[in-house]
């Protein structure tokens, strides 16, 4: 006869769980970004590898140090900072001096994340906070673009990489402008196939729309990304820029160019979808996406800068809690009811 158990555990229901975990979600976002990173290294060579590595490591180090400073257990294990680090690296232009990357990484983590209270409390996407800081502090370095597919890209690093902090970096090769800058300042439109494949100048991760979309589909399939956000952003950009292009084709670029140029794809798929800084309700996500799409078109076409994805997302991050409040879903059995 079996003996009775010595102790029984008391635990309130439910007694089972899905097995999903914050670290699983974050780890999978990193996986989804790896092909984008690999392609960036292919297009820009060693400098992209240096940029991505420096960005990721500086964020990891910053997170670790901030945790120690606050006397808390290290939160590296939840993988959220790895996501921030890789995303941050992908927004930077290859060839950016390493000291700037590290400084921006500490700003991303310190201001973008820890100032708000750490994981779950950041009002803005931390990676974009870091980038926004660099954009404001070092406007020249942030808009100096390394050429894509350079012949020596796997053998040499641009001299700006290891520039001495706070000295004006020297650039050995200045590429032609990014597609958006070319459009804005010269009126040139880059071919759509080059844009989709990502064989153009730009930030490290702004290259292959195709791989970004594949990564996004992977995350949506695993229920780790809300598809409504990128779909709403891209649909809004397509509709608005398409309408403008129809009205005045000579003044406004076509919708395909607008979709695939610059940081829109990376921003729509991986930046705007930051769970913490985006709305929770389905309708809220659609409105949030539409807001970002509208801002992107407005900034790109009428603003002073060629690119507007970063500011569009940061602005929408700021209003995302209010969007959720506006569109609270109807609770079962309340509101309009058909009578029996």
């Amino acid at each position, binding site marked *: *006869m*079996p*003996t*009775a*158990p010595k*102790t*029984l*555990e*008391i*635990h*309130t*229901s*439910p*007694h*089972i*769980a*899905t097995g*999903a*975990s*914050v670290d*699983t*979600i974050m780890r999978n976002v990193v996986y989804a970004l790896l092909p984008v990173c690999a392609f960036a290294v292919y297009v820009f060579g060693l400098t992209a590898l240096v940029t991505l590595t420096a960005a990721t490591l500086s964020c990891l180090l910053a997170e670790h140090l901030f945790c120690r400073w606050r006397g808390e257990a290290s939160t590296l294990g*939840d993988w*959220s900072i790895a996501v921030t680090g890789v995303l941050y690296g992908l927004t930077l232009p290859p060839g950016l001096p390493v000291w700037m990357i590290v400084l921006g990484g500490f700003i991303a983590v310190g201001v973008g994340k820890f100032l708000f209270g*750490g*994981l*779950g*409390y950041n009002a803005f996407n931390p990676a974009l906070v870091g980038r926004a800081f660099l954009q404001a502090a070092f406007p020249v370095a942030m808009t100096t673009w390394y050429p894509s597919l350079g012949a020596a890209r796997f053998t040499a690093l641009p001299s700006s990489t290891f520039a001495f902090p706070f000295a004006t970096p020297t650039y050995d090769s200045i590429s032609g402008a990014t597609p958006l800058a070319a459009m804005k300042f010269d009126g040139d439109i880059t071919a759509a196939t080059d844009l989709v494949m990502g064989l153009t100048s730009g930030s490290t991760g702004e290259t292959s729309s195709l791989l970004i979309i594949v990564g996004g589909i992977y995350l949506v399939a695993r*229920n780790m990304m*809300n598809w409504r956000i990128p779909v709403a952003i891209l649909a809004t950009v397509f509709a608005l820029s398409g309408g403008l292009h129809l009205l005045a084709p000579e003044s406004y670029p076509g919708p395909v160019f607008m979709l695939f140029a610059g940081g829109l794809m990376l921003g729509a798929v991986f930046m705007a979808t930051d*769970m*913490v800084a*985006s709305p*929770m*309700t389905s309708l809220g996500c659609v409105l949030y996406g539409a807001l970002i799409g509208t801002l992107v078109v407005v900034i790109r076409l009428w603003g002073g800068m060629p690119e507007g994805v970063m500011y569009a997302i940061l602005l929408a991050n700021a209003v995302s809690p209010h969007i959720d409040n506006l569109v*609270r*879903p*109807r*609770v*079962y*059995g*309340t509101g309009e*009811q*058909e009578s*029996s």
Partner: protein
Amino acid sequence: MVSLIQRYKSFSHGVHPPESKATTSKLKIRQFPFAPVLVLPLAQHIGAPAKAVVREGQEVERGQVLAEADGFVSVPQHAPASGVVRKIGLVPGITGRMTPGIYLEPFPGSSQEVAEGEPCRLESASADDIVAAIQAAGIVGLGGAAFPTHVKLKPPEGKTIKTLIVNGVECEPYLTTDHRVMLEQTADIYMGIRYLLKATGARHAMIGVEANKLDAAETLRAAAPDDIDVVTEVVAVKYPQGAEKMLITALLGKEVPSGGLPADVGVATVNVATCAEIGRLLPHGRGIQERVVTITGPAVGRKGNYRIPIGTPLRFALEQVDISDDVSRVFLGGPMMGQALSSLDIPITKGTSGFVAFTTAETRDDKKEYPCIRCAYCLDACPIHLNPSLLGLLARNAEYDRMVEEYNLLDCFECGSCSYVCPSHIPLVQRFRTSKAVFRERQAS
């Protein structure tokens, strides 16, 4: 021809926990032996406890009334075995806390014939007669709620009941009692529906069965009688499809108003095992003496569906099914809403639909709690369309009034879907239970 992709009716949101029913759903209901002593708390149901009408040392016959109902929201208690009343005093109740009750010692070797009472004749009985007979049979919701069934059958003033919904969904993982009852007691179910239609005045009945029990749905359809208007509807496999409100929405497309009752949308719902018991007992004027219980889970050697005398001590039951030494958690009901037991010295009562026993392997709790990352999984899971994430934050700040007044906390029926999906492992439903208790306590004072 059955199409390959078939969309069954359901409600919006919900979760899909692993069903874990395969082992026991194919096992026929087996009769359990009598334990040396049966433990019968007088409060096995919601409402006023029954009043004992026997004395210590009295010999009783199986089926005899041991305790009578104390008011309308109460039910009597029948002797689960012929034997002798050993003691009337404090017994362990369903929560493990001591409560008034009766110890009954079955006579060994007795034939255990069941005493027949006054039968309730379907043809001649009025609605009130049937309601009274259901109460006299000691019937409560066998799905686990243990609410006296007869109370639900009388519509409130000014309401009429048009539809009787028989709940054969059994959406809790592991449990298979309703499934087996539908397969093995089909005739009893239809007899029960006849009584229930007459008692409620409903014109037609619907039996809701989850799509993972298609054999039960087919058996029910094949045996459907002509004299009553009854259909069996298959609903999607989704938790908590078996919740009363969710089943009504799936079958009729109506929502029970917040704070209201099924009668507000013209519906009365009864669990399928309860319905079968009504059909089995009323024609003979008998009372409940036993019920079907699933005993399963990784720690159980002989998993199965057992017809167990009411009052059987759980410890005796678990010894019969070869419980593992490595058992670490036993809970009453399924894993989503079941209550973990602190003691095995509790009896099987009318509301016990099953026991699931986990070993240390299943309960190893290495899950770290993270801050909420606003992933919205809980919003997509909540069948009531609440915002569990926000409610969780409010609960942590003890803002109970806001939770209730602004965010509909009292509409939460504690299905646990939010906690089940939370990747941050935040004990959401647990916080809501506490919040509701505190809110109600404050209101009362």
